[in-house]
């Protein structure tokens, strides 16, 4: 795909309402006169000034996305005062994303959450139809765009250092009943290694004290490698945590790019424009200049020694207490009128995984020389453990496709259908599995594959400390069996259906 198409996709991401979208309104982005501190609650600081400064000179930000949701009728505004302890419960009851205009005890802050808690809202963030999120993601990651360093950062309009550093000044909400504490979920965490360079990931930070959090660094990741290398040398690892960025930064942060790949360049590819970065104030790192909030500090060289959790996991169940490093905060910077992004677990975590897993499924199918038509990572499988794909099948390719899909990450259930099945329709899928599957021929079980701790069925508790779980994988070939004519699957049609219209008989 050409760079022009990437640009157009990025443009579409910012103009879903079909109207020409001007970036004049980025008054806080350095291309216009300052209007900081005068933002009306209704406009998130975008969309008023109408001076032309078009994409792709800069990537879209968190507030642009809020405006897109608002324009699409997907943002519920709550103007009444809300206790941060009730934020998550209210978000869970709202059919839309939720914007909290007044927070009890936090007069300078607003909050927003559940922004990508549905496939529809994820598609809005990605500027594409719901069925196209995987291909949209693929196109973005194939065209990385290097980030750009800027001098002026809205994320540093207010700087707290020294005695002013106090995490209780941030409206960190309660989330689930059995959580071990309130935590910050929408993180874009930046670290650097002398050999490998910059890394960007997403890790939850559970509040401990006004200057310390834990960091959920249990799973294997590049930053875990960085931290281990620092730990081996007895030194802390500096990190910076940006909160309140566009979902593309979160997607890039959660994408397992090769260790030498800069995830900010991946985010740039998704945006179709460079991500603007600013140098941190107290650590040698760069963060998205337009983030709402940034925490700067270091992971103490104490190893995995601090109890953290339980967390409500993206598997929709409560995890176990973990042993994690401690993050000591050295500085807090934020916008003058900050909006705290509450990434709603598990739904936003699930949906942010969907394009990554679906794109990996597409790549696996193509590598197996199978032509995919559609692919889904359904939310019932947490957009992670299950893949359903329809293919243009040649003999034997139902099985080839299953083997390919089951090779993706920790996918443990794969279903393959022909291209006449609407894989978004559960009834159509059931029909295919009922009439195109013979269990002794078309069901594949792969034992002993890599599993994940938070799947209770792998019985990780029996493994002992440090044990890695395995899982059995299940594949169902719901394509028309070889040797059965396609005509045997011709659907019923009603006589004269096209000759008469119900409207004419009302």
């Amino acid at each position, binding site marked *: 795909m050409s760079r022009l198409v990437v640009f157009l996709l990025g443009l579409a991401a910012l103009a879903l309402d079909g109207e020409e979208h001007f970036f004049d309104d980025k008054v806080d982005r350095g291309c216009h006169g300052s209007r900081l501190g005068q933002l009306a609650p209704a406009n998130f600081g975008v969309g008023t000034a109408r001076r032309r400064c078009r994409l792709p000179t800069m990537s879209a930000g968190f507030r642009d996305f809020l405006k897109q949701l608002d324009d699409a009728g997907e943002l519920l505004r709550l103007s009444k005062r809300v*206790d*941060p*302890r009730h934020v998550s419960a209210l978000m869970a009851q709202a059919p839309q994303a939720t914007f909290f205009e007044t927070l*009890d*005890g*936090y007069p300078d802050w607003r909050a927003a959450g559940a922004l990508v808690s549905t496939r529809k809202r994820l598609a809005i963030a990605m500027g594409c139809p719901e069925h196209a999120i995987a291909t949209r993601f693929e196109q973005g990651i194939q065209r990385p765009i290097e980030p750009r360093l800027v001098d002026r950062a809205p994320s540093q309009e207010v700087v707290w250092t020294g005695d002013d550093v106090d*995490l*209780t*000044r941030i*409206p*960190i909400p*309660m989330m*689930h*009943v*059995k*959580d*071990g*504490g*309130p935590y910050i979920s929408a993180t874009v965490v930046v670290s650097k290694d002398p050999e490998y360079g910059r890394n960007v990931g997403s890790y939850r930070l559970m*509040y*401990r*004290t*006004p200057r*310390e959090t834990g960091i959920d660094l249990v799973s294997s990741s590049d930053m875990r490698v960085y931290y281990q290398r620092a730990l081996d040398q007895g030194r802390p690892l500096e990190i910076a945590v940006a909160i309140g960025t566009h979902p593309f930064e979160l997607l890039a942060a959660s994408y397992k790019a090769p260790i030498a790949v800069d995830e900010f360049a991946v985010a740039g590819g998704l945006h179709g424009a460079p991500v603007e970065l600013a140098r941190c104030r107290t650590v040698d790192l760069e963060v998205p200049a337009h983030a709402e909030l940034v925490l700067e500090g270091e992971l103490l060289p104490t190893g995995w020694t601090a*109890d953290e*959790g*339980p967390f409500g996991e993206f598997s929709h169940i*409560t995890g*176990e*207490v973990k042993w994690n490093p401690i993050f000591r905060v050295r500085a807090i910077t934020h916008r003058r009128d900050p909006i705290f992004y509450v990434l709603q677990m598990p739904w936003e975590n699930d949906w942010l995984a969907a394009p990554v897993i679906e794109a990996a499924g597409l790549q696996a199918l193509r590598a197996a020389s199978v032509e995919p038509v559609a692919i889904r990572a359904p939310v019932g499988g947490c957009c992670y453990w299950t893949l359903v794909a329809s293919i243009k099948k040649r003999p034997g390719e139902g099985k080839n496709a299953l083997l390919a899909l089951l090779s993706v990450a920790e996918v443990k259930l794969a279903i393959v259908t022909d291209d006449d099945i609407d894989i978004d329709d559960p009834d159509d899928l059931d029909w295919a599995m009922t009439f195109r599957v013979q269990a002794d021929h078309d069901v594949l079980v792969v034992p002993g594959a890599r599993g994940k701790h938070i799947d209770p069925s792998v019985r990780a508790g029996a493994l002992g400390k440090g044990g890695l779980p395995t899982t059995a994988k299940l594949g169902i070939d719901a394509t028309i069996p070889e040797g059965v004519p396609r005509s045997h699957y011709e659907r019923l049609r009603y006589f004269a259906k096209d000759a008469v219209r119900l409207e004419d008989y009302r």
Partner: protein
Amino acid sequence: MSPLARAIVAELRAQPCHFGELVQAHMDAPWRDFLHAWGEVRAAEVLSRDDAGRYLVTASPSPSAP
């Protein structure tokens, strides 16, 4: 320790609690005050966990605790 932090320690000495249960018991305190108090309890290094992830206090706060 603040009175609120002392109250939390006393509750956890009496029985293990999930964090959410502690929060529920102190909804009358502003959230920020509660978080400050929780930070004091954390810093005192008196917390343990049971198998269900609940907090409990089995030790006494150190004299140097804030």
